[in-house]
């Protein structure tokens, strides 16, 4: 366990203006809208810094792609640095936040943006091994950290 922050000086961006969704939006209800998903995850707090994943450009609107026909959601995020050891925690936060947000048969794949992490393949493998994810979320320390990242914006 390294002392001090992995990335002590992250670059912080202004929050993008939020577009209000019209009430008579034809895409409401059944459809899974990437922007709706983005709205749910953009404010997740980074595990190490008091900023949201959006503010640190870890996530952007382009991070989410949805294939309605196949029932697949792909989230691509960009860790702030190449050797980010919090990448798997961010993955856990994303899965936990999105847990009950779309029809049960939808599959979620989470990856780091290509070229954004030194151990890209290894990190992607761990992020998508559902048994590892399940076990990690049962670990009280990780659970605590995830809860803080998800709910601190509501405090």
């Amino acid at each position: 366990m390294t002392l001090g922050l992995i990335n002590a000086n992250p670059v912080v961006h202004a929050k993008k203006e939020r577009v209000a969704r019209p009430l008579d939006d034809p895409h409401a209800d059944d459809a899974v809208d990437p922007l709706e998903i983005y709205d749910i995850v953009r404010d997740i707090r980074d595990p190490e810094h008091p900023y949201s994943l959006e503010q640190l450009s870890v996530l952007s609107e382009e991070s989410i792609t949805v294939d309605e026909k196949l029932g697949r959601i792909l989230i691509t995020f960009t860790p702030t640095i190449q050797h980010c050891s919090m990448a798997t925690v961010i993955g856990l936060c994303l899965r936990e936040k999105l847990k009950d947000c779309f029809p049960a048969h939808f599959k979620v794949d989470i990856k780091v943006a290509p070229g954004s992490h030194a151990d890209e393949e290894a990190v992607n493998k761990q992020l998508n091994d559902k048994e590892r994810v399940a076990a990690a979320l049962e670990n009280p320390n990780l659970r605590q950290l995830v809860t803080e990242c998800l709910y601190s914006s509501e405090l």
Partner: protein
Amino acid sequence: MSLVDESFELKELQVLEGHADRVWSVAWKPATGFDGVPAVLASCSGDKTVRVWEQSPSSGSFQCKAVLEETHTRTVRSCAWSPSGKLLATASFDATTAVWEHVGDDYECVSTLEGHENEVKSISWNASGSLLATCGRDKSVWIWEVLPGNEFECVSVLQGHTQDVKMVQWHPNMDILFSCSYDNTIKVWAEDGDDDWHCVQTLAEANNGHTSTVWALSFNATGDKMATCSDDLTLKIWGSDLLTIQSGNGSAPWKHICTLSGYHDRTIFSVHWSREGIIASGAADDAIRLFAEDGDGLVDEPKYHLLLKKDKAHDMDVNSVQWSSAGNRLLASASDDGTIKIWELISLAGDQKPPL
């Protein structure tokens, strides 16, 4: 009865509800389901419990007869009956393996095996019931000797896998142990006499092996073929020489026979070979697929074909598929949707085709 010429249907008989979280595994109790003995099935779940289901002789439907709870403190990942059916072993993310005995109307935990550093993922009893193997995320495989009075003694801790070990399975006839892992390999472990266990073969990418996590393996009835399934979206069939295996002289090497690719587009979590030779797979696309050997393949180069695909078998990922060994063509499946389903493989007469 030829598996090549006939058409089949997988008929859903019943949906077993009760678990409060995803169901990871199911296991049929040996020596049940025929000769008037009702079929019994165990299931284990993320809800930390194990349920035992029994088929009613009059109605044919399965009912939950017992809930094994307040023992494991985390997800119960897999369960396995001893060959006699007297004991049920359960592996948990709480790093322990519990052994249960049927006492009267209930099940009692008679032993707890500790030793793994973290999540235990799989257990397997050998054919005679004298040995138990466990494996887990700590990359090790443990072999335990079954002693009188429900005592268990660890006889070996096998290191070799470089990552999380997902499943262990004893050979159906010989005391040879197989394990598969997140490190993409399958390892074969044998004894040198006197509790000296070591890895005698590793089936890796270079041997036509898998290119991602291997989740499960299953043997055919004669024990000379093995099917493995993986996150790399393929099923692989491996073979070994039966006579060499049985002679016990040195180890019989396993060779890649065939790769079934293009049939799955999400991780395959489970594979199980029935006594009749039908291979069932359960995958993350919510479907169950059945494969059988071609009738006209060469003896040395058998080919396999898709017998049927059951789309939307469950509402979510299928984690486990298990054929009953009772010869009644029943298949049990477990899913992230919290249910277990009982299926029957029905053969359709002559010109009847399954509805599209």
